[in-house]
């Protein structure tokens, strides 16, 4: 099975998966914490304007921040309670970002969302619901979903791909969502197809997720409406299968040329978890204020797949799961290949937080790096056909600005090169430096 499944054409690696730590653990709702810090800047783009004042009373799901201009998505309170302060909180990428801290009212009743019909709604009305719910892509960058689903006029699309590769080791949030919410995902897919006016949807799943493939395939067979065709595509397990360009090439054979976007080749790629939240936003009119987060690694007392309120501090999650072990060596937000390591557990969960990994000292490798021995492994594994070795040597020699010739801007920083490098060279870091200086 794994041999015959399709994959992308060049490069790729097989890091230790470590999925077994959490793959069979059902999604568990973490009780809402006493306080949440809702970041007003959840992703790139403009920060939200705050709609509430200090000491104001808010309810679960209430809009507390909106974007007036530019890229962005509104944010909602994830608990019912009172606004304690409006200040700043740690952010994994930006160090610090503006935030609203809300103290939960322990007496408040949990909010219940009743389903409603959506089939009669127009694409504009559907998009409006998605915008009101503050949806962003849950896979990584957090691009606002209502903007993504509004491609420029004249764009010709024919295929929707739900990205369920989840090729990052450790993570199981998409996997568990597929196993536990297959019908919600399929409804989400049908809503996207309706908005885009197309009929064909492929769900690309790496075939280490047999249960998800089985559940989704069965649900797709039951659920397919006459006006659309939804299929589940098992893919070979190979990192970075979940990279948009690699996924599109695997499923459609089309290549997205730099600096183009998937819709240039007629494809829209949406994360499978996002499809589930599209269902919630449209059918339940439930804003995005909680998400599934895989808490894993060999240095957390109890790994889990948690349904967590946005704004929950990681320190509260650690306490809920029984603390960390003594061999804790690194904390990573996201997957181990592309995630950010963080210096503090005061960080709140964001809409894009797919996982929090507590890695032990035998899971990471912090040996110092040496000079490039030109073994060429990085060139072999680069799925974009680049030369990370040359970029590193140029950067070290102070010639970062001459690296455009190696296609550094095509690099999406999957980290396969740094993973295989026997000299442990920080090739992703070199490439980021190259991008910052090249062509300027």
């Amino acid at each position, binding site marked *: 099975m794994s041999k015959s499944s399709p994959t992308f*054409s*060049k490069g790729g*690696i097989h*890091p*230790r998966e470590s999925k077994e730590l959490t793959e069979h653990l059902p999604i568990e709702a973490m009780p809402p914490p006493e306080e949440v810090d809702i970041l007003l800047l959840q992703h790139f783009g403009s920060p939200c304007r705050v709609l509430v004042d200090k000491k104001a009373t808010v309810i679960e799901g209430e809009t507390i921040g909106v974007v007036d201009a530019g890229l962005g998505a509104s944010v909602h309170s994830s608990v019912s309670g009172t606004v304690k302060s409006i200040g700043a909180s740690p952010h994994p990428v930006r160090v610090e970002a503006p935030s609203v801290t809300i103290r939960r009212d322990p007496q408040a009743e949990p909010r219940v969302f009743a389903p409603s019909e959506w089939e009669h709604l127009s694409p504009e009305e559907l998009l409006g619901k998605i915008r009101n719910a503050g949806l962003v892509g849950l896979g990584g960058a957090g691009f606002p979903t209502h903007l993504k689903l509004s491609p420029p006029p004249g764009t010709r699309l024919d295929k929707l791909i739900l990205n369920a590769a989840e090729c990052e*080791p450790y993570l199981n949030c998409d996997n568990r969502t597929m196993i536990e919410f297959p019908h919600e995902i399929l409804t989400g897919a049908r809503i996207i197809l309706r908005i885009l006016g197309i009929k064909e949807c492929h769900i690309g799943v790496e075939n280490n997720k047999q249960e998800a493939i089985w559940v989704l395939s069965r649900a797709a067979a039951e659920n397919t409406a006459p006006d659309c065709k939804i299929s589940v595509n098992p893919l070979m397990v190979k990192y970075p299968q979940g990279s948009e*360009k690699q996924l599109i*090439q695997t499923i459609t054979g089309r*290549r*997205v*040329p*730099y*600096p183009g976007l998937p819709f240039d080749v007629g494809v829209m790629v949406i994360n499978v978890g996002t499809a589930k939240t599209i269902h919630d936003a449209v059918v339940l009119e439930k804003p995005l204020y909680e998400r599934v987060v895989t808490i894993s690694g060999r240095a957390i007392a109890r790994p889990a797949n948690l349904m967590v309120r946005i704004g929950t501090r990681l*320190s509260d999650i*650690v306490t809920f799961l029984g*603390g*960390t072990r003594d061999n*804790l*060596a*690194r904390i*990573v937000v996201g997957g*181990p*290949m592309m*995630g950010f*390591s*963080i*210096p503090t557990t005061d960080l709140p969960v964001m809409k894009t937080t797919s996982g929090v*990994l507590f890695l032990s000292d035998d*899971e*990471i*490798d*912090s*040996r110092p790096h*040496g*000079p*490039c*021995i*030109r*073994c*060429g*492994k990085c*060139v072999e594994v*680069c*799925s*974009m*056909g680049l*030369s990370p*070795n040359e970029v590193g040597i140029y950067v070290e020699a102070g010639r970062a600005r001459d690296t455009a*010739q190696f*296609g550094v801007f095509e690099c999406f*920083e*999957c*980290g*396969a090169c*740094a*993973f295989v490098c*026997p*000299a*442990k060279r920080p090739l*992703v870091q070199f490439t980021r430096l190259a991008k910052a200086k090249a062509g300027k």
Partner: protein
Amino acid sequence: MIPPAWSVSISPHLKSTESVEKIMWTVVACLIPSLILSVFVFGFRALIIAAISTASCVAVEAATQKLLKRPVTVRDGSAVITGLLLAFCIPPGVPLWMPIPGAIMAIYVAKHLLGGIGFNIFNPALIGRAFLVATFPVAMTSAWLAPIHDAAVFGSLGGIDAVSTATPLYVLKHYGMNAVIERFGAPSTLYWDFFVGWRPGCIGETSALLLTLGGLYLMLRRYISWHIPMATVLSVGFFSWVFGGEKLFTGDPVLAVLSGGVILGAFFMATDYVTSPNGNAAKLVFGAGVGALTVLIRLKGGYPEGVCYAILLMNPLSPALEGWFKPKRFAPPKGATT
């Protein structure tokens, strides 16, 4: 509250278990069987020369790095490889001190003065050998020992009491194929002897069998690819077959591949990461070039053997070969020069 006892770093946070040390020491392990066999073929001299060569390379590396105020990295095993390879391409009958100047040339000049690991242009061990051939031409081209055919190895500790002889390539070059057969036996037994390693030659180059096994293991571990060794061997065989006989297409490709340092060079020297190109197409051209130059030197040059100079001539072409055969980018911008 968790005490901040963890580190912060750039992604990826997972790394493969490979390391430079692991690769280098694996290469050393793959050379050891040939070294052991050389003791049975040439006596304990072979082992002593290899030990002196290896010790001098490690000592020179440590001294050089101290002198240049760089971190001392002798533990990574790369100087050990250079030492073994240098011994492997020295005749077994040379004076015991002979590897020392070669080691200084290989490690101090060819490796560290040209930038250290990762930056040297030429294969250090081969520069060491080339230097010795230029400086001590008589010893380096005539101190051959005839293989020991019985357990006499245990009686020949250290001294040159074995018989001096000529290499098959020397005989072939100057006296022709019939003389080779007269001296080393008919092709039926000669091929087998040469394949296993019972023939005159440099210390570690004689056993095609053990060297090939070592090379195949490196391929299995994916430390080297098949491209350079295959291209080198096929190229030596092909050009020897075409031009190696008295008339065109009458040369003996098997003898050509099994003599001299072709197998050693193809698997362990031409594949040196630093001095050979990346990219499969570039590797094939590189190997073919090594093979063609080897045959050219053997047939038309002053020396009976040409592998060393063939590789040294191809080494500086590596960057150019990489430039000519750049990896194919996945989906570059339209009009990009790839």
